[in-house]
């Protein structure tokens, strides 16, 4: 967290940086936030990489724990130099065998790609789920199989809204999410988990393919929430990501982040939700604005008017009443209801009370 860096631009009011949440060492870790949702520790930039034909020297730093054994590295480098190239067709044979073992993300460019990749990531987690994992309680009192039924239920409302095939019993697009979830949980009861997995994944694939053929300006209202189609796909991305992190944490697996190019549109979506979450929570600030700076992979800066009639836009240096600087992934998870706003690590300047109110309101749209 950038505790020391001053936010960019000029700020009305006292030039005072304060940090929300309890001071002290507890701040660094957010209780309740799954470890798997945190960004992985980046490799030490001072060390040179190993594993490339390029740089053999890097891994072995004397005295640094976990660094390479020099003989192992040398041995592997010698083998890499010695062996011959792959025979013709080896890559194509590999890809065919890999596709049969786990389907790749549905190949869609643009608006559906971040969601397609999170579906593939959840599927990768399910690939290493044993029998005990399927009946393990993950979140909301749901087992892994029931959690998957919940994802299939919420996905199904989007499928119904865009005319893609729906998994499980038929549903109206504007059905209630909780009722649809209950129906899907009943539907999968007694099913082999692999069937639940296959049906969920097939429906998600159909959504991606169908969405890619539609005008991005299409307004749909699954579950009664009217937004343009791309935002619904980002909402599905975020929920799939968060529940995958929930499940990975319960299963003791480390989950890597999405690529930065998939975090960015999701963070943008979350930034655009702030005026809504604030209004829903009764934050009275329609004439005010904040600058949101998200750090780390997928980050950026936004100008966020807390007025539902005005658009959230990339930061253009306009005057604001407060600034909030925090980690992009942590921010997405906060909007998704993971992590406590009171202890959320963020640096604020300007009207600290306003910034705190906005952060406290942030999870207002998160459901189960």
């Amino acid at each position: 967290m950038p505790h020391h860096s001053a936010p960019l631009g000029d700020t009305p009011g006292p030039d005072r940086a304060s940090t929300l949440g309890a001071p002290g060492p507890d701040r660094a870790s957010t209780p309740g936030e799954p470890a798997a949702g945190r960004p992985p520790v980046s490799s030490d930039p001072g060390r040179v990489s190993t594993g490339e034909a390029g740089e053999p020297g890097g891994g072995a730093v004397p005295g640094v724990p976990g660094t390479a054994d020099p003989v192992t590295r040398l041995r592997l480098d010698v083998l890499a130099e010695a062996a011959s190239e792959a025979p013709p067709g080896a890559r194509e044979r590999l890809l065919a065998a890999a596709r049969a073992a786990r389907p790749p993300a549905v190949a869609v460019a643009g608006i559906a790609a971040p969601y397609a990749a999170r579906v593939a990531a959840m599927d990768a987690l399910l690939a290493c789920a044993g029998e005990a994992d399927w009946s393990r309680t993950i979140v909301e009192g749901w087992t892994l199989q029931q959690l998957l039924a919940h994802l299939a239920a919420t996905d199904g409302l989007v499928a119904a809204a865009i005319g893609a095939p729906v998994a499980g019993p038929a549903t109206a697009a504007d059905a209630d999410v909780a009722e649809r979830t209950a129906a899907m949980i009943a539907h999968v009861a007694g099913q082999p988990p692999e069937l639940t997995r296959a049906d969920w994944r097939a429906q998600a694939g159909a959504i991606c393919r169908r969405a890619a053929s539609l005008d991005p300006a299409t307004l749909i209202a699954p579950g009664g929430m009217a937004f343009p189609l791309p935002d619904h796909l980002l909402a599905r991305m975020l929920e799939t990501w968060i529940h995958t992190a929930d499940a990975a944490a319960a299963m003791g697996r480390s989950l890597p982040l999405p690529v930065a190019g998939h975090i960015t549109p999701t963070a943008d979506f979350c930034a655009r939700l702030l005026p809504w979450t604030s209004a829903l929570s009764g934050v009275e600030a329609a004439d005010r604005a904040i600058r949101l700076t998200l750090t780390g992979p997928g980050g950026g800066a936004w100008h966020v008017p807390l007025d539902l009639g005005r658009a959230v836009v990339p930061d253009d240096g306009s005057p604001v009443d407060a600034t909030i600087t925090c980690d992009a992934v942590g921010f997405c998870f906060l909007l998704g209801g993971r992590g406590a706003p009171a202890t959320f690590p963020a640096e604020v300047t300007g009207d600290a009370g306003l910034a705190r109110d906005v952060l406290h309101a942030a999870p207002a749209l998160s459901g189960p």
Partner: protein
Amino acid sequence: MEGPGTADDRLLHQRVVGGDESALSEVHDRLYPLVLGLAMRVTRDRSVAEDIVQEVFVTFWERPLAFDPDRGSLRGWLATIAHRRAVDHVRTEERHRVAAIGPRLTEPEPSPLEDWVLAADEAARVRLAVSRLPGEMREAIELAYYRGRTYRQAAVELGLPEGTVKSRIRLGLRRLADELAEKEV
């Protein structure tokens, strides 16, 4: 085990977890020779080794969360799996042979990757091969591996351009491959 995964390892892992096939292609293109070399060293059979390489890459694709870049490099992880599969193959073959014609009196058992690399005699064999390298290559290899220098540090210590150090190391690795008889098993 090798040190933690590199930034490239992490990005490739993120992409593979996200179902990006082109990332698997990159892993294949980059690490095929190493994984094949390892499998051939144990099995002494090119076509068996090629099958093992494919199995290892498919395993990585199917269950990418079994690999954790915080715990080691991708190539070290793939090498470990390849070594284990190759050893399993040799043992199965040996059991069939024993069933058919009876046991040999002394059977060299293949060992796990770490045991093999770190075994005193293997380490000594590598050390000996390094000591037999021409002086320029030996200096560069010793700095880069036994003293843990980066290319840049080694270049400074040797008073040479970095590119020269790199090519000496590359030549040295090839020489070692010949010396350790692994060009073509």
